[in-house]
């Protein structure tokens, strides 16, 4: 079991959350080329290390929030400035 720390509810079982994805800025749809848009939608960095992510706490506060997670050991630290954080 993996625990994830929601900024509103505290540490909860990860099954309460939905993984939204890596937090990254969306290119402007008016000016982005198909290549840029495709890269935004389907290409992810998938690093072994710290990554900024967005999660949705569907079984709790029902808020999206950003968090930084180490993909190697699942260590976490807050990321208030992460894109997608709404709490």
């Amino acid at each position, binding site marked *: 079991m993996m625990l994830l720390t929601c900024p509103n*509810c505290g540490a909860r*079982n990860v*099954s*309460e959350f939905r993984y939204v994805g890596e937090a990254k800025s969306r290119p402007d749809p008016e000016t982005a080329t198909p290549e840029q848009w495709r890269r935004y939608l389907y290409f992810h960095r998938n690093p072994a290390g710290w990554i900024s992510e967005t999660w949705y706490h569907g079984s*709790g*506060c029902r*808020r999206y929030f950003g968090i930084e997670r180490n993909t190697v050991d699942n260590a976490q630290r807050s990321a208030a400035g992460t894109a997608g954080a709404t709490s």
Partner: protein
Amino acid sequence: MSDIAAPIARTALSFPGPLRTVDGWETTARHATGGLRLTDLGPLVKLTVRGPADGSVRTALGTSFGRTARPRGGPLAGALVVGSGPGEWLVLGAPGTGGELLAGVGAIVADSGEFASVVDVTHGRALVRLTGEAAPLLLSKVCAIDLTDRVVPNGSAFRSSVARVVTDVVRDDRADGAARTRSYLLHCERSSGQYLADSLVDAGIEYGIEVGAAAADPI
């Protein structure tokens, strides 16, 4: 003489045995005499309020996320206000008080000038009360939250997965003279209510759970 019977609302939960009608709601008439009981509180009025987490709506409702309040005066007198989420409240009132409560909360929302809403969800939700000293033991089988006094004291609330159903859990101990009995309100979507109740009964068999209300239980 009219041959049309008065309309009856049915709570989300159905249990074998006799039925009774409470303010137009048909619910189980079973009596529970044991130390651990599950009571259907479907007839209670349920309102959800949404608005800014730290605004005048919050001030008027008297509680914030994770806590409950029982206003003694004003339009919410006698109701239980639950801070069920950030900027989200659940207001529970006695059966049949829906009109007054909705008007009262509606006035609070209107007077606030904030972008807020109030919705009557009485018929759309299931509400049960689990009472007894073994209640936290039972809940620990279906819910991953630490229910000790330090984490979930009386008067607190949280939303989590209970038997895999998203449920508002409110600790609202019952006072019987000087004695207090552990009690939790569990509130979920109506369509999940029967499953949740059956899961709680199943998990509570080893603690001698009974379905129904004791004589001392107010609905």
